[in-house]
Every structure is written in C-alpha cells, then in structure tokens.
C-alpha cells in the first residue's frame, strides 16, 4: 500500500533522486539558517556569563508570535510587524539580562540557568493563554510563487531566510571585529576581570549579549514562521536544536555556530526525508549526543588545554 502510494507520487511529479536531495538541501539550509542564528544567540550569552540561556527558546516563539500578532491582529504592514517584533524581543532579552538576572540574590551559574528555565516556562504559559494552543501562520514576506531549480521547488521565503541570515551574520562579524562595542563584548567574554580593569562596563556587555540573543532568536522565529507556522510551544524544540548546533560547531565559537547550524539543518532534513519525518526531532538529538560523546569540543571548538586553563584561573 505504502509502496504503491510512493510509486504514484513519483510518477506524478517525476522526481529523480537528485531532485529529491536538492529539495532536502534547500529546506535543510533554510531551517539550518535559523539554527545558526539561535546558536549564535546561545553562544553570545554563554560567552558573557557562562549560562546556558534557556530563555532563548521563548525568544524564538515570541519572535514568530509577536510578528503574527502585529500583522494579523493589529493590521500593521508585514515588514513593520517583523521589525517591531524583533525589536520588542530584543528589548525583552535586555530586560532579562539587565533586570531579572541582576536582581537575583545568588549569582551562581546553576541558579541563573534555573531562572532562565523558569522565565521560559512562565512565558510559554502566558503565550498559551494569549494565543491558544493552535499553530498560526504568518504570510510569506513576498508572495508564494515558487521558483524551480531542476525538479526542486524553492519558495521566495527560503530566499528571504538565506538573505536575512547572510546579512545578519556578516553584520555580526563586522560588529565583533570592527566596532568598539563588539570588541569590548569579546574582551569581557574572554576575561571578565581584565575587562573591568580596562574600564569596560561588563554588566552592560552582559545585558547586550542578552539583547543580541533575543534579537537573533526573534529573527530566527519570525523568518521561519511563514514556512513552519508558530505556536506557543515551538520554542523548546527549535531552541534545543539551536543548542545542538552550537555544540556541533563548538560551544562558544561564533563561526562554528553558523557551520553547526547549517550542517545540522542539512543532516536533519536529509535524514528525515530518507527515514521518516515522524522521527525528525530524534535525529537532531542523536547528533547532539554523538557529538558530546566523541568530540565534545565540536567541529571548531577551542582546544582542550585552553579550556582547562580558564578553569584554573
């Protein structure tokens, strides 16, 4: 029964294996781009504070949901809604970094991680209350007319995702390498005390890193929303995959995050296509465990000696 269905399918669309793989690559790269953005967000906060920022998950969800709300309910133009959504989530990120985590009586990393978990869970609850349990979609940024490459379909939204990710990554590169604030952030990440001593406001850098992670999460959430739709609980799974991407690329390594994200997206898309889409989430998780097991420093991770060195100081 199943094989006859597949046969029909193949006949109808006359898909060759090459087209099929090409299709998986196209969708894998677009999902992978969002993982890359999320992974950079994880890294930014991790480098600045040592915290696995669980609130990254809600940034993704809020990015999508706020975009949809601004557009469908407040009837704002699509691009304005998208920008507004990213800005609001950036602000929320800064608020978490500056407010909640700083007021906390204990600054132990374990406690801070728990706080981000708590924030994430309560915001998810609020989202469930506001938007209900069902997924909602955002319209594509520029229509639905697909392009065809060989036998594969590439939708305009895919192009948007590639473009936005490229622009964001390049401007982040510029920001970290060329601007004084970006350099200060890197300095504070490498050596907190040293950064204090040369007059860098480390706490502001922590806040900035949260804002950055909020903004990146929101961008990821809002650009993928037209393809995958968004719902109150979308953040946890996508966030987890972004984390897996960060580990895959080497935790804390910005460039590794991009490579890890794209690679994870590709592996997941091809794996799900060839095996079964039901177990799509299982694939990302197994990759996470395999990386942790065999090469915990990731593809571009720092060498072990240096991490030990940091610990002892």
């Amino acid at each position, binding site marked *: 029964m199943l094989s006859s269905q597949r046969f029909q399918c193949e006949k109808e669309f006359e898909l060759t294996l090459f087209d099929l793989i090409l299709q998986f690559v196209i969708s894998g790269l677009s999902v992978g781009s969002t993982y890359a953005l999320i992974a950079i967000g994880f890294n930014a906060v991790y480098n600045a504070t040592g915290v696995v920022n669980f609130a990254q998950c809600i940034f993704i969800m809020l990015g999508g949901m706020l975009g949809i709300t601004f557009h469908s309910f407040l009837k704002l133009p699509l691009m304005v809604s998208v920008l507004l959504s990213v800005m609001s989530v950036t602000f929320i990120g800064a608020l978490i970094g500056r407010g909640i985590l700083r007021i906390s*009586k204990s600054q132990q990393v374990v406690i801070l991680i728990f706080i981000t*978990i*708590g924030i994430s869970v309560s915001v998810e*609850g609020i989202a*469930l*209350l506001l938007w209900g349990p069902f997924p909602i979609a955002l319209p594509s940024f520029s229509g639905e007319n697909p392009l065809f490459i060989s036998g594969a379909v590439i939708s305009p939204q895919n192009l948007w995702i590639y473009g936005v990710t490229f622009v964001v990554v390049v401007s982040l590169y510029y920001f970290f390498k060329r601007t004084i604030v970006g350099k200060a952030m890197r300095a504070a990440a490498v050596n907190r005390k040293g950064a204090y001593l040369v007059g860098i406001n480390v706490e502001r850098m922590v806040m900035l890193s949260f804002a950055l992670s909020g903004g990146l999460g929101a961008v990821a959430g809002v650009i993928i929303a037209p393809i995958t739709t968004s719902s109150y609980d979308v953040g*946890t799974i996508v966030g987890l995959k972004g*984390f897996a991407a960060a580990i895959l690329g080497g935790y804390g390594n910005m460039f590794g995050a991009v490579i890890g994200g794209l690679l994870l997206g590709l592996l997941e898309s091809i794996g799900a296509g060839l095996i079964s889409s*039901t177990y799509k989430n299982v694939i990302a998780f197994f990759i996470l465990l395999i990386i942790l097991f065999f090469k915990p420093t990731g593809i571009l991770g720092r060498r072990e000696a240096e991490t030990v060195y940091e*610990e002892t100081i």
Partner: protein
Amino acid sequence: MVLFGKKDYLPLSIFAGIIIFFPIVTRNPYYISVLNLVGLNALVVVGLNLLIGYAGQISLGHAAFYAMGAYLSGILTTKFGFPSWPTIALAMLITGSVAYMIGVPSLKLKGHYLVMATLGFSLIVYVFLGQLVWLTGGPSGLGGIPSLKLLDFDFNSDFRMYYLIWFFCFLAILCSLNLVRNRVGRALRAIHGSEIAANASGVDTKRYKVKVFVLSAVFASFAGSLYAHYINFVSPDSFTFIYSVQVVTMVIVGGMGSIWGSLFGASILTILNQLLHAVKEYNIISFGAILVFVLMFFPEGIVFGLANLYKKHKKFFYQLKPSLQTNPPLAIAINLNRRTPFADPPLCLRQSNYKTILKLHKLQKSFGGLMAVNDVSLDFKNGDISAIIGPNGAGKTTILNIISGIYKPNSGKVYLQEHDISSFKPFLIAKLGITRTFQNVKIFKNMTVLENVMVGFHPKTNSEFISCLLNLPKVEREGKFVLEVAYKALEFTDLANKRNAMSSSLPYGEQKRLEIARALAIDPKVILLDEPAAGLNAIETEEISRLIVKIRDRGVSVILVEHNMDVVMGIADKVIVLNYGEKIAEGNPKDIQEDNRVIKAYLGE
C-alpha cells in the same frame, strides 16, 4: 547511624509517626490520594535533589525517567505477563543504564550540557510514547496495569497503596540522609564547591557526577513503576516537559541540598498542582513564576530563606549568643588515643629508600604559541623543602599543574619515585600521595572546616554509593576514623578550635591553612604549595613558614612556589629559579642569591 545519624533519629521517628497516623485521623479518600501523589513526587524529588543540590548538575529529563519506569512496568506486566516486583527492578536497571549512557558524554566537560541532553532525551521519549502505538497505546494511553501484590495482599486501594508508597518514601529519605552525611555526600558537596579542588583532593569527580545522575534516574524510575501500578493506567500526558519543570521547582522551593526540604517542596507543590489541575495555562505559569521568584529571592529554598530572613532582622537575638556558629564544643567525642595515620612517627623512615621522590624529565608545555614550560628537568629530594621561584609568567604554577595532573605536558615525563605518572588524572595523583594547594584559595566554601579536611582524606577510604546509602557498619567505622584524622590534621595546622565553623567564614590566612590541612590529611609523600604566603600579613607569613617547616619535619617533601623571598630564603633546602619557562639556576638559597643570572632575571641588566 551512631556517628552522624543521631541528628536524624528524632525527625525520622516523627516522620514515621505522621505517616502511620495520618490516614487514621483523616479518612477522607481524596486527601489520601493526593498524599499518594505527594509521596511519588517526593521519591523523584529526593533523588533529583541529590543531583541538583549536592552535585550541582541540572536535569530536565526526569519526566522521561519517571515515564520509563511507568511504561516499562506497564508494558512488561500487561503485554508480556512479567511478574510485577521483578519488573520494577528490571525497569530500574534499564533506566539506570540509559541514564548512564546520557550522563557519561554530557558530564564529561565542565559546563551545563546535561540540562540540554536530558531535555532532548525527554522530548524523544515523549515522541516515542506517542508514536509506538502497538506497544505504548499511543496518545490514548495504556490501561489495565495490575495492582501490586505481596503474597496474598493486594495493594488495590488508595489506603493500601498509601502505606506502600510512604514506606518506600521513608526508606528513600533515610537512605539519602545516610548518603549525604557520609563519604559520598561529602565528595558530592565538594564537587559543588570546587570541582578542580575536589579532583585534586582525590575525588573522581566525573564518575561521581555520573553515578549520582544514575541514582536519581533510578529513584524516578522506581516512583514511575509505583505510579503505574497505583493508577493502573499510563498516558504520555503525565510525562511532559512540564513534569520535569515541576519536580525541579519542588527541589528549588524545598531548598537545594536539603533532603527534608524536598519532602516539603513536593508536598506543597503537589497540592498546588492538584488545585490548579483544571487550568493548564495557570498551572504552567504558576510553576514557572514560583521557580523564578524563589530563585531570585530565596535561592536557598523557602524554609531556609525565611529562616535567614528572620535571622537578619533579629540581630540582637544573635548578639546574645555570639558563639553559636564559631566555637561550639566538639559535637562528637573523638578518641584521640587511637593510632591514626596522622599519629604515626614521621614518615622519613618509610620513604628513606628513595633519595629522589619526584623527578621531572624534559617537561614541555605550551599554550597556543606561548612556551610556558620549556624542556625543564628537575629532581626533588625526599624530605626537602624545594622552592621554585622566578618572575611572573616563568611557568612555576604550570609546573605544579603538570605535576598534579591538571595539565598534560606536551612532552616529557613526571616520575613519582620511579613510577611514570605524567598521564594520570588529578584524583589518581592525589591517591598516589601528591596533594596540593591553589594560588587563589580553593576551599569548599559550602562545607565546614572539619568537613573540608575530611574530603582531603577521601582517597584513603573506600565506601561507595551502595554502602553509604545503607550506612553499613563499615561506613560508620570509616567515618569515625576520618573524623579523627581530620581533627588531627586541624590540630597540626592550629585550626582545631574552628572545626565546626563554615569554611567561608574564616579569615584569609586561616583559609590558606585550612587548604594545607586538607592537603595534609592523607599524609602525602609530596605536598605542592602554590604561593602559600601571598596576601598574608607579616605575622601570618611567619606562621605559615613555621608550618611548612613542621610539615617537612614530618617527612613530607614540600614543593613550594613563592614570591616572598624572606620565606623562600629562610626555609628552603633547595631553590630552583625559572625564567621564561626555562630553568636558569638551582642550588641552596645562599648560592642562588649570589647567582648572576638570577640577579639579572629579577633586576634586569
């Protein structure tokens, strides 16, 4: 339970009394059924607290372990006709193995990978529970799970199950209290305090973290099995991510590292959960909000948090008894007549066969492009105080880190007596008799002075998880023995009267001596002291110098890195000078002071 357990007798018997008499007082079946859920959650929470509160690791996957216990019991008994009790044990075994497989890779590194690995795992388990319909019944669940039977007695009602659940809950609390008060508990708390210092004190930190993670998963699995046999029905909805968050919140509210607190947290939050059961949204929000609120303002848990708040605002109450914390009479009688390792005659006799205790052969270590240690060969004579000096960045601390196993050299070897130890992990090196202190003091701030030193004796004792959980007589004997040793080590360093103070409350100079006491507890062959006099005033420096000489006179070889030349020139038998990672001079203090290269290195041309 003679040694530490005394403290627990009273609360445990009150607890047992409440358990036994509660259903007799109130015969309301609804209350009983809620209490049963409290008991099941408490089982999970107590185990989870061992992981979170003691080892400082976070798991968001306990819903999955709970689910594994429940589903394994349910499936194996209904579909394959397995007997229920052995199945529970089998489920614990399987869950434990799975936890082991997750724990080993994710606990390998510093950082909090476990939180994501467990979260991922629980999402996967949830997917499988919903998808494998032929096995698990899919989203609509699996029914008809038989209730538990013991001989002919059927645990088929709330009341009967109540006594069974709470019996096991009582056992779990008893065992956990045993665990945390004994050797393993001290080691776990030490890991929480400072992982590197724990490792250098001889605790196999990685293995302990994995073991406690597996233990907590096994607790959850057991609770899950009981749940399945109690409700007779399981469905994926009971084991969502939200359940993991709920049990974590219970741990936090009760207080990380407090076993009784876990019971408290499980009680009030399970009841809250029951009240909010109807509205899922508010349930999720309230648990998240409670988690954030408690962590922000009472990170030590509600009970301790409120107690501390009370203390803060009742200062005069404490002024009446200022000695409450610092110098109470020794709580436990210590039999000082017994011969402990620390009472042995100086060890030079034992080690006199060896002229050279420690030998470094062509050590090389670089960080990136920087050569921190370049081709250094050194011999350390048995029973000497050997001082390593040199300008900042000369590679002195790096050499100590290589000897103690924290760094692996790029090339070259370290020999203790004639054994090559260069590839050993820090805890093994400590076990072989090389212990150390750190440049920036790394005491276990979450433990008392005495407990700190007791951790130092860890490598010479061997009671592990099972024997500690059961508090076997061996553990008790060992505990007594360790106490004596630690006490003597504290006497040796003049800290005996501070033994019950929190180590974080000591002044800096005493913290440094405490670190030395901890390193001395096993009577090491070699002790590595990294700048023991840094940051001390003149009197404290004098004291430390005398202490170091006293250590040498016991027969312990001392390797000292120090900038204070009065100390070095006053007490060292041999001085080694490093500059830019290379040895530039070696000899007795007098020769070194006159050596031209040394003067040049320190003063420039």
